[in-house]
């Protein structure tokens, strides 16, 4: 210990900032060609604050520790056949959706942050983006690794990346991320680090992962929280980027506000999938979507935007609509999947009576009035052996790509339709939020790859459902449709030694025409 110990700030300075240099052979603008075209003005990259002063040596040390802990648990989970200890086999469908919908986004984030890190000309954000890029690769790897144990026992896990590129509902997360990645570096980090990771991912990783623990899934809660421990760093990068842009130049304020408005709405629409995971897909429930939205968005998000108001930033546009929708979102979403489950790579079901009671207690103003009667009607059809599947493909929102099943902000009985004209064609939207985003950049969104349009144009293996399923790599009667009729359920009952009298009388899957 001869040398004096460096303070954290000095150490950080030496290990990051001092690694940068001023180029002499090339103009900086040629080295970082994307830093200006979005209209963001930066005068002094040295004003960038690094809230977590994590140096690369400390980074590797803590990441290695996280990995060791995680893999010890993954090993224990598979050695002890932990997949048999989950609450019931319905739970596993939430994991299917996670692997098909979320894990590929982790990989996309790995690529996106590598690109963003290359484009920022300040060393602070370069280092932060580089670490995040490595984190995101770790996330996708640990998720694939953990969930592979379920693939040995349950259907629907076998070709998630292929499905992510093709299956209709997975175009929702895929197009969300590709929209961000095809923007410039400042919009990309506003979209992903700030709007998604800082403002919205708590909804996915906190109540949902806590829910995984509650449902006996030791492996998922562990990779979830292991990933989330990196997330605090990512969220902090998001907040820093926003504050940095706002402090550098007043002209940045309206641009940043526009991006916050856009990416709040994009992210909120994406979380529709999470709302139904929480309210319908966890057999043992931790909290309702409504409660989570109140806690993590209205309360914490409210405090955040109040903090940002000193820079002239207000709450994201249409946040009030998200609050109006909180008692409907998960029910409207689950109904879409109940309708179209013959084309989905996970099972759906009607809530059991005790679950209906939970839902009416959590949603006293809407559930019994609007959704219970619908479920009871569907149950009566199911009891007659006529389980309802909708054979008419839905109209999709041009922007968020979700079937247009959301209702008017002020009328839960009326489907919300919005439309715009561009170059003589008409485009349809689920909400004012989605329409505004389109109207601001129509030349981008007219190019959207909409699954339903693509099917009708014959680009998805053929025009019939069996052809499309084959193109999706989905096995009919195995990966899709009603849980009660599924192999997953029959296997589960056999493994658990439970009576299978219900499954002896299979419910016929009738697709109406």
């Amino acid at each position, binding site marked *: 210990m001869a040398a004096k110990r460096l303070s*954290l700030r000095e150490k950080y300075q030496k290990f990051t900032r001092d690694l940068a240099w001023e180029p002499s052979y090339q103009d900086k603008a040629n080295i970082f060609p994307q830093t200006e075209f979005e209209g963001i003005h930066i005068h002094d990259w040295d004003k960038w604050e690094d809230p977590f002063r994590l140096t690369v040596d*400390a980074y590797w040390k*803590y990441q290695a*520790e996280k990995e060791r802990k995680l893999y010890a648990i993954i090993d224990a989970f598979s050695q002890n056949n932990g997949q048999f200890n989950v609450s019931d086999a319905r739970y596993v469908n939430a994991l299917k959706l996670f692997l098909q919908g979320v894990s590929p986004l982790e990989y996309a984030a790995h690529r996106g942050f590598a690109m963003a890190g290359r484009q920022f000309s300040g060393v602070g954000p370069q280092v932060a983006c580089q670490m995040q890029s490595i984190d995101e690769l770790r996330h996708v790897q640990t998720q694939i690794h953990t969930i592979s144990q379920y693939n040995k026992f349950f259907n629907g896990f076998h070709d998630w990346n292929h499905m992510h590129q093709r299956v209709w509902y997975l175009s929702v997360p895929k197009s969300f991320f590709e929209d961000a990645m095809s923007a410039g570096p400042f919009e990309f980090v506003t979209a992903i680090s700030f709007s998604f990771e800082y403002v919205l991912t708590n909804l996915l990783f906190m109540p949902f992962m806590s829910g995984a623990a*509650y449902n006996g899934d030791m492996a998922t809660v562990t990779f979830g929280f292991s990933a989330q421990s990196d997330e605090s760093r990512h969220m902090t990068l998001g907040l820093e980027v926003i504050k940095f842009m706002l402090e550098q130049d007043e002209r940045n304020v309206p641009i940043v506000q526009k991006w916050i408005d856009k990416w709040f709405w994009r992210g909120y629409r994406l979380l529709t999938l999470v709302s139904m995971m929480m309210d319908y897909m966890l057999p043992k429930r931790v909290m309702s979507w409504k409660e989570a939205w109140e806690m993590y968005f209205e309360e914490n998000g*409210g405090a955040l935007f*109040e903090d940002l108001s*000193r820079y002239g930033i207000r709450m994201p546009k249409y946040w009030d609509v998200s609050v109006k929708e909180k008692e409907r979102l998960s029910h409207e979403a689950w109904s879409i999947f109940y309708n179209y489950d013959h084309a989905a790579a996970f099972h759906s079901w009607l809530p059991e009576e005790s679950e209906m009671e939970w839902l009416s207690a959590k949603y006293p103003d809407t559930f019994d009035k609007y959704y219970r009667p619908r479920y009871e009607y569907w149950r009566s059809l199911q009891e007659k052996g006529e389980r309802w599947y909708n054979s008419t493909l839905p109209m999709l929102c041009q922007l968020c790509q979700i079937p247009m099943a959301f209702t008017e902000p002020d009328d839960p009985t009326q489907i919300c339709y919005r439309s715009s004209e561009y170059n003589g064609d008409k485009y349809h939207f689920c909400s004012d939020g989605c329409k505004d985003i389109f109207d601001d950049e129509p030349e981008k969104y007219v190019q959207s790859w909409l699954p339903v349009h693509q099917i009708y144009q014959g680009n998805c293996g053929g025009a019939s459902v069996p052809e499309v399923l084959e193109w999706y790599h989905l096995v009919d009667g195995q990966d899709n449709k009603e849980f009660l009729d599924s192999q997953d359920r029959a296997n589960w009952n056999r493994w658990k030694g439970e009576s299978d009298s219900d499954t002896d009388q299979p419910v016929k899957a009738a697709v109406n025409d």
Partner: protein
Amino acid sequence: MANNNVFIALQNNEEARPIIEAIEQDNAEARVEYAPAMVKIDAPGRIVVRRASVEELIGRDWDPQELHVNLISLSGNIDEDEDEFVLHRGD
């Protein structure tokens, strides 16, 4: 919805327990809520995690950066140095 709460969420495990205890000691207004596998701590305006308080509880040296291992999420502006980790609102 006027509020200025900050929060920190940690895994509910052996390593995090003394950190949670230290936070409770040093932040009189902290509200601690347990959910399956995790703990969420909210407080108006500010939360501090002090190195000295954690070291006192665990009887060994502790680096505030060890927080990263069991951290789940947080909200607020961050100030970090050798002796404490602070979450706050405003400047």
